[in-house]
């Protein structure tokens, strides 16, 4: 062999093994990345499942329901992407993080909470209470399957139906047909707590519309987090609130939740029984190896009442409404998403369409909302006799001047809400007619002003509260007030800032029943329609209290669901009379009827397990309703709130008035408005106009279609016109491509 040959042989000895290795590696790599034949896998799975007792029940265009009649477990196959969604984690027995209690729970489809005869609350799942005993019946229906779980020892029969319709899966509790045949009292039924529970192997999150919306990551949960639960539309106001603190129950604005795992997702909407429902979630690793989320229906109110409250010898007792909710249905609709729809932005779009009927932009866009406090009540003397009198803060002329100045600043097309126009100012006798205090202006002055403002594309809207009873009058008697769970008249207390305990020095507030609310609402709409095009409801969109009146024949006794339905009647009636509605601090049930909303939650309850707060509710409203967060003059940090306003697509909102020099401090009840002088904020409103002008121009006549956290402190919101709003909350500059964001600023990108 010559040298060349030797070199070649040497090269060959190196090259060939390298080539062989590369081939091997490529083949290994190909094996690793091999796209699984899901159809085959599905076939094999269904075949496996058939072995495990699953039977095909029903199919529609893209979904198929398989059920195991022996265990009550089922799964849904989405043939559009061959994803399988199990009612219960299939491998729950091998979950190393779950103890036996949770392993049993993971095999159940419903969980009940009830009061035993000693009035102690207990819970039980259907696997232990019914399936293991074999005390249940299963019947196939023309659209799915119905289970009747008989909890023999506890004495309940609970019918649940699972079915498919229009490519959606439904779980329904037929509350009307629940049977109680022992002394235990059924309180709540949690439905499908582990449906499609992600095991955390893939990236994803659980979406909960707590406040503005929040996500619980599948893999990055705080170790301190426990389980989550929250009431849809906030807590029932009829329940006794012992302390006003940060540990208040979490408030869920919209009746839905979502799961995103990899490129699939589920959007679950509580379609029926939403006002009676709660949402439960547990991050991955907290109780089990799975992240889980489900909803429940409250079929009977129970509460803790205190005897001799705040006396040092107080004693708590459990109270309950003897009547179980009737005429109530509870239904959850599960939509299965995939690909680009498997994220919260798409879910918001889907829910928007469901709520408003379409995704088109219909909002009558306004640029600013100002809530003006026209009067306050202060202590006065008539000669030597002290009394509580009304002090005027702003007149109609002042309002006109403010409106003109807002126009001059650039905030044309604004809304001015009137607070404290009543004869006795706010927090006093209920007025179902617009008869203003003469100290602030006459009725005709207001109507004239409203007409002039409407002509300038502005809106003047009187604020009103037809739920809180501050004083009983000839028209409203004690018997018209809502009853608490024990059957007594509901009293809502104010709470001391320092102790979070009830402030018994301030008279408690009662709540008007929904029937009278509807009547007075109609009266107010008729009265206001003579001069206004919009009214601003201060309480109807969030003060939702069940009426636990013991007189079963009286129309007064109503579940929270029925109360909500009454409210909706009032809202609908208002719209039908051509009167637009503005709501304060709204919950999801009212959003459909809103022209504008203020104080819309733009943060969450602060549950430790939340990975991120997202503007889910805002995305649902975007393009449909004008929405504003907290009053910018009363926020903790105005600049951060402005950035959030830009990120969330809000419009600026202020609560203003003008305190005279001799009235620098406001009396109790009014003193939450600690910073409201228009003369002080006028220049700041002008600054805000300059700050937000670019954002406003870029996003006008567009709606949010995507929101994303790019990295720590950097967020992007994309609009339907292609505009992307980037917000940098951090203290470092952020650059991406041509975009450079200084700290604490926003910038505009995209294709608009």
């Amino acid at each position, binding site marked *: 062999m010559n040298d060349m040959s030797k070199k070649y042989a040497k090269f060959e*000895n*190196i090259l060939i*093994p*390298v080539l*062989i*290795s*590369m081939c091997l*590696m490529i083949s290994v790599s190909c094996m690793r990345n091999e796209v699984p034949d899901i159809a085959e896998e599905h076939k094999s799975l269904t075949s496996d499942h058939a072995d495990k007792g699953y039977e095909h029940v029903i199919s529609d265009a893209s979904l198929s329901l398989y059920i195991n009649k022996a265990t009550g477990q089922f799964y849904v196959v989405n043939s559009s992407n061959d994803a399988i969604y199990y009612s219960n984690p299939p491998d729950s027995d091998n979950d190393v993080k779950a103890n036996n209690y949770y392993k049993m729970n993971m095999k159940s489809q419903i969980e009940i909470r009830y009061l035993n005869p000693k009035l102690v609350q207990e819970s039980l799942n259907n696997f232990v209470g019914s399936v293991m005993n074999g005390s249940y019946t299963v019947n196939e229906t023309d659209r799915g399957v119905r289970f009747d779980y008989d909890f023999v020892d506890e004495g309940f029969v609970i019918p649940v139906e699972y079915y498919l319709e229009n490519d959606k899966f439904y779980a329904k509790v037929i509350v009307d047909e629940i049977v109680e045949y022992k002394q235990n009292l059924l309180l709540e039924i949690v439905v499908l707590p582990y449906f499609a529970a992600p095991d955390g192997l893939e990236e994803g999150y659980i979406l909960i519309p707590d406040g503005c919306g929040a996500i619980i990551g599948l*893999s*990055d949960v705080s*170790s301190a987090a*426990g389980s989550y639960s929250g009431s849809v539309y906030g807590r029932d106001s009829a329940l006794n609130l012992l302390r006003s*603190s*940060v*540990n208040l129950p979490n408030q869920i604005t919209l009746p839905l939740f979502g799961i995103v795992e990899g490129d699939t997702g589920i959007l679950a909407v509580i379609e029926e029984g939403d006002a009676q429902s709660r949402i439960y979630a547990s991050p991955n690793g907290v109780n089990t190896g799975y992240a889980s989320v489900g909803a429940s229906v409250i079929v009977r109110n129970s509460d803790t*009442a205190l*005897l001799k409250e*705040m006396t*040092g010898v*107080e004693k708590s*007792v459990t109270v309950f409404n003897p009547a179980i909710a009737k005429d109530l249905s509870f239904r959850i609709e599960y939509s299965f998403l995939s690909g680009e729809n498997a994220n919260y932005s798409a879910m918001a779009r889907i829910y928007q369409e469901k709520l408003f009927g379409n995704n088109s932009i219909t909002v009558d866009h306004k640029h600013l909302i100002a809530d003006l406090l026209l009067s306050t009540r202060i*202590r006065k*003397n008539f000669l*030597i*006799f*002290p009394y509580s009198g009304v002090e005027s803060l702003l007149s109609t002329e002042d309002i006109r001047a403010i409106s003109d100045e807002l126009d001059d600043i650039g905030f044309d097309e604004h809304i001015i809400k009137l607070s404290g126009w009543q004869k006795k100012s706010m927090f006093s006798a209920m007025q179902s007619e617009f008869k203003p205090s003469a100290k602030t202006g006459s009725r005709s002055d207001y109507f004239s002003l409203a007409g002039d403002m409407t002509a300038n594309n502005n809106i003047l809207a009187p604020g009103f509260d037809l739920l809180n009873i501050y004083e009983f009058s000839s028209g409203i008697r004690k018997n018209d007030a809502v009853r608490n769970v*024990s*059957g*007594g008249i509901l009293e809502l207390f104010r709470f*001391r*800032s*320092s*102790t979070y305990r009830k402030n018994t020095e301030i008279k408690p507030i009662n709540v008007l029943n929904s029937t009278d609310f509807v009547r007075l609402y109609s009266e107010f709409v008729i009265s206001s329609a003579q001069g206004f095009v919009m009214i601003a409801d201060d309480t109807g969109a969030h003060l939702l209290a069940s009426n636990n009146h013991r007189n079963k024949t009286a129309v007064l006794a109503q579940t929270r669901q029925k109360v909500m339905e009454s409210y909706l009647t009032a809202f609908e009636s208002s719209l039908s009379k051509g009167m637009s509605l503005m709501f304060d601090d709204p919950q999801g049930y009212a959003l459909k009827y809103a022209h504008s909303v203020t104080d819309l939650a733009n943060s969450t309850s*602060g549950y*430790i397990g939340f*990975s*991120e*707060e997202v503007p889910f509710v805002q995305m649902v409203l975007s393009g449909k309703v004008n929405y504003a967060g*907290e009053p910018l003059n*009363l926020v*903790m*940090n*105005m600049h*951060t709130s402005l950035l959030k306003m830009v990120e969330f697509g809000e419009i600026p909102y202020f609560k203003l008035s003008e305190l005279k*020099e*001799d009235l*620098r*401090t*406001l009396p*109790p009840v009014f*003193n939450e408005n*600690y*910073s409201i*002088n228009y003369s*002080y904020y006028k220049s700041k409103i002008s600054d805000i106009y300059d700050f937000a002008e670019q954002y406003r121009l870029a996003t006008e006549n567009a709606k949010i279609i995507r929101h994303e*956290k790019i*990295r*720590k*402190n950097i967020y992007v919101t994309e609009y339907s016109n292609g505009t992307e709003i980037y917000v940098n909350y*951090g203290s470092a500059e952020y650059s991406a491509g041509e975009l450079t964001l200084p700290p604490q600023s926003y910038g505009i990108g995209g294709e608009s």
Partner: protein
Amino acid sequence: MTFRRSFIIMIIFVLIFSFSGTISAAASSASAAADADDVAVDVDRITRSSDNGYNYDPYGYSVPAPNAYALLKSVGADEIPGGLSSPSDIFVYDNEIYILDNGNNRIVVLDDGLSFVRAVLPAYEAGIMDGYGLFVHTNGNIYITLYEQKTILVTDPEGNVLKEIGQPVSPLIPKGMAYRPKRLVISSDDKIYLVAEGVYYGIIQIDADGNFQRFFASNTVEPGLKTFFSNLYKKIFTNEQQGKTERSLPYEYSSIDIDDKSFVFSTVSADLSSSGQVKKHNPAGENILGRKDPSEVSANVIAGTGKYGDHEINLTTAGYVTSLLNDISVDDRGFIFVLDTSRNKIFNYDQENNLLSVFGTEGNVFATLSEPVAIDASGDMCLVLDRKKNTLIAYAPTRYGSLLRDAVSLYSAQQYEAANDIWLEISEINNNLIIAHDGIAKASLGRNEYVTAMHHFEIAKNKTGYNEAFLQNRTVILNRIAPFLFILLAVLLAGIWIILSRSTRKAIQSTSKKEITHDIRPGYAMIHPIDAFERIKSEGKGNTYYAIAAIVLIFAFRLISLNYTGFLFNSINPLTINFAYELLQFALLFLVFTLCSHAVSSFIDGKAFYKETFIVCAFALLPYGSALVLSTVLSHFLSLNEAVFFSLINQIGVYWSAIMIFTGLMKVNSYSFKKTVFSFLLIIIMILFVIFLLVLAYSLVMQFASFIEDIIKEIQYRT
């Protein structure tokens, strides 16, 4: 060979590939970690505080306020390698934050950006699991108090043990004194001030070697009912019997801090009956917080109570839940932060005892405090250590908080004019903050704008400041109107002189006693009480309608006084004036007195009818009522310097009325002087008895009503 080599190369290549896969997995894991950091809640994006800000109004009621401090960062397991485990103290020194991480037997050091710098592992065999307090000397040495081991451990900056300081020994230290070292500070002259559990005698002062020097700033037993009965007990019972009872001991110090001028600040963890729980000690140990010198009375904290922490309290089955102040820190600018471990809050004071803000709250949601144990300040940040959550929570001032700090700094330096604009802005941001009005008032005073100053001092309820502005304003007005005033005075005097001389002439002309044909009028009774009351008895000239009119008038005078007394002499919260309550109180007192008086007269053979007693008492109160009106009018013209006149007028009214009642009852009952005195004693006893009965009856009725209410509620709840 060739094949073998080829095979080896192939294997190596595959191994490298596999390894690279591992590296890539590791990298992806690191990237996941980075992502995990990205998905954590962004604190900078938080717009709503977990706690509602508040402060107190001048009457001691909590009022809403903007948040002065907001969460800056929560530092825990994600930021500190190994996390924290049951940490117990923090100390800021030289831009570094030292955390006593007991559970991990180490001291964690962070930089002022709250990033991990290093961990110091003390080379101490027994460990520092029972560490309580931490102090870093200016020479870098670290002092750790070991609670169970009753030792102060001193290490160098690397953790090498330099010395251990045990329990101090001295004849001054009582035998058997419990000793558990908690927190310590060291002054610039190397004196160690130590707070220890079980030591009621004060702060222990030792030298650098641990030799006892003295008890510094001894607390005293606060006088009160409990102390009174305790002292009484001591006099009555034997030592053995006393031993079985609770001892009255001074409150124990709970924590300590020191500022750059070596002033020691301390807290005592005391119940609601205490005041002065926060102190600033001069080198003699005297409390000088809020005082120019120690002899001054403790300055007001909330509504003049002298109490720190929360003024409003909870009453629960566990009793009163009040603030427990268990740690203190003073920042570089002299702002005092006090940690309330009972309610998980931080109270922020200035050095003049003004409560500036309250922040933090208990809870189980994000950015709340579960078990705060220690507090310190770094720059503008306030740092709180949470033992249960194993986190260090940093709060930073909001814009409002920063303005407040700037304004107070200027205010404390008496640069009122410079602070004025900031105070004006603060008062716009928080109308409820009274201290802002104090600042504005002082600036106005500096500009000689007395009326404005008086207005703001009145809102701030600062009587001293108001008085100063009032005096200046009065002088200006008097200077302006003095000539006219003296002319008016001369005219008045002339008029009086003319009237008096005519009266005198008339009096001389009519030497005989004038026959009074009509009933005695209240005005006549005021000037001629003996004659008037004699006539009421002997001639039956008393008129009940006049008496009722007099009572109505006096009640009206009382209301005038309540409503219109000038600010300097009026301490009543106008919101609490209740017409019905005042009427009931007045009527009840009057009726109780007249009825008791009548009852006594029946008992000791008095001759008065109830009507006569009623008329006499009603007429007799007129001087009191007139004095009220006069003092109310004068209260708008007098300064605090002339307060004696205000009191004098009221006292004259009261004494005059008392004399009239005395003479009136003597005359209508035909008592002797001695018998009248005796009857008054009986009346007082009877009144006390009647009040006792009324209180008892009221209490019983209320209890019965409450009992009925409870039964109704219980029936309602149980059915």
